[in-house]
């Protein structure tokens, strides 16, 4: 294989038919406002943790929605729970409980 200095990136297609959405439904039942999200990213832009490290709450939300739970638990621990995201959310999502419940659901086996 010739090294071009770059390679074909691995596919990021997620086959939703093979995913287990139990945890998503669990979260939606606990915090119904989760469904209102329009992925605008205001939360991520204002995030306190994001200013120090690569913490992206919007990305976490998307991955969670696609049932890609690996590594999320570790990532969520970076949140300082300060609540700025909740205050800026234009769709009125209750983001702190979403994060707290994600932590809880992902940690319970």
């Amino acid at each position, binding site marked *: 294989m010739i090294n071009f200095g770059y390679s074909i990136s691995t596919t990021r297609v997620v086959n939703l038919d093979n995913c287990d959405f139990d945890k998503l439904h669990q979260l939606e039942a606990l915090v119904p406002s989760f469904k209102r999200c329009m992925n605008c990213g205001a939360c991520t832009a204002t995030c306190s943790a994001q200013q*120090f490290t690569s913490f992206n709450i919007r990305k976490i939300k998307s991955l969670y929605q696609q049932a890609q739970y690996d590594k999320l638990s570790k990532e969520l621990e970076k949140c300082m729970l300060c609540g700025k995201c909740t205050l800026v959310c234009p769709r009125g999502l209750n983001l702190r409980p979403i994060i707290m419940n994600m932590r*809880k659901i992902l940690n319970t086996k």
Partner: protein
Amino acid sequence: MPYYFHPFVLPFVLGTIFLFGICIWKYVRWFKQFDRLQRAVIRKNIISWKFIGAIWESFREGILHIRISRKNLILGYMHRSIAFGWFLLIVVGFIESHLTPTVDGSHPFWMAIFYRYFFPSHTDFPGSFVLTTIMDCLLIYVLSGILLAVIKKIYSRALGMKKATKHVVFDRFAKTALWCIFPFRLLSEALSANIYHNGGFFTQFVGDLFPLDFALTFEMTSWTLYSIALGTFFVALPFSRYMHIFTEIVLIFFREWGVRDKHERTGYTMYELSACSRCGMCIDNCPLNKELDINNVQSVYFLRDLRYKKNRPEISDNCLMCARCASDCPVNIDLMAIRQQERNKYEQDTVGNYHYLDNVQPFNAIGRIGYFGGCMSHLTPTISESMKAIFEAAGQRYWFMDEDRSICCGRPLLQQGYNNQAADLRRKVTELIKKSKITMLVTSCPICYQTFKKDYKLNIPVIHHTEYINKLIQAGRIKVRMDDLRTVYHDPCELGRGCGIYKEPRQVLQATTHLVKAKQEGENSLCCGINLGDTLIDIDQQKKIRDAAVDNLMYKHPDMIATACPMCKKAFVHSTTLPVKDIAEIVRENLISK
């Protein structure tokens, strides 16, 4: 067999022995659960003036119920008449029975309770008539309280309570026993008075209403029922809400000696749980009850569920932590601390999550004061801009700790029960502050302010920016002019009830603008609704609470709303057409440049 004995006294005697046995057993068990620091503080203060203070306080609160009277006069009278009246009945009854000459010289403790039975003939000793009259007055006093309690049960609004506590079955059982005691006492003494003519003005009057046959037939039954009512109440007491009668007094002693709640539950919390009388004063003013009609989460129900080990996260998490109930609580239980303890997240409360903060370098700020805007001030940048202008006008060198990037103070985590994670953040922020060598810390956010004051150990003064501005104005370091607006001040929960800062913001506002009153303010101010305490209510419910808070501020039709918390400001701006400003902004606008 003692001379002054009859089998009917047994329910009372056994009940009393059981009551004190259980109480002592419980108290010893809880005391063993105190942690090391709590015991140390008791050892330090046990023999001091605080002991006298505790005796005075337990008389005031345990018996006279002064605090409850301040909130509601009739309710205070009801509690006082039962507690103080009963207390005096015991004291005067004890004196009366000990002054009475007895056949065998003995004075068993039940003699005072069943005095008129054991001394059928008029006893003649100096003062006996006075004592009999006093005893009758006291009985009327207690009965008036019981009557009010019955009225409250039927129609609580008559006593100024919109909602009374919904009690569990066992509590109602104990209450019925309590309500039976004094009517039965009256009946028994009256019937005895009818037969032997040994009553006071009241018992004799009531007794003469009955025919003699009736009195002869039912005298014994009545005394027995009186004894059974007492015995039943005493047996039920340690397991019902009436455990507060003794526990409140023990709690007052511990509190006066300096014991406080910890982040985890200790024996002290157990005393607090049992000291709650479930009076329900916390229900009416709870914003969740008032605006959202959620009425199963208030402190009274929360403490009850906790005591009977039935607590659920839906109850402990559903609270704004505005501390309005704590300011209403006549027993002064630290309700917020207990709520926080119960939110403990244990297994999810992992340590070492915030390694990314290790890269934050300390700043050398010798000779400056520190300014901590807090996360929320980043959403209301005019506050920190105004503070900068004020620092400059005062010629104060400062270091804006979180100008670019804000580290959270840790209180939001702590409030939700992530104790370890909050401690992690506190360690980091403390390290930054200590290494910077600042001499004072000014903060704009009451949430941060509270935790800096209570949970951090910084060894430098920590003040809120309203206190700081007040000091600047009083020292003449900044000059301000008066504007012609009528301004109402909203007390943020965390600053007012949380830290007791009511005076300073008002002094600043009086120097810069015309301060008008809100309908409820100071300790009774309302929560702005958009806060970090509650994770269960959604945005629409929060907005309802916010609108109620704005209505409360509109009482005198002000031109401007002033507050001292970035979150309250953020909450109000969307709900009113009036300008909503932080005190720092108002001062900056009215600065006279030198």
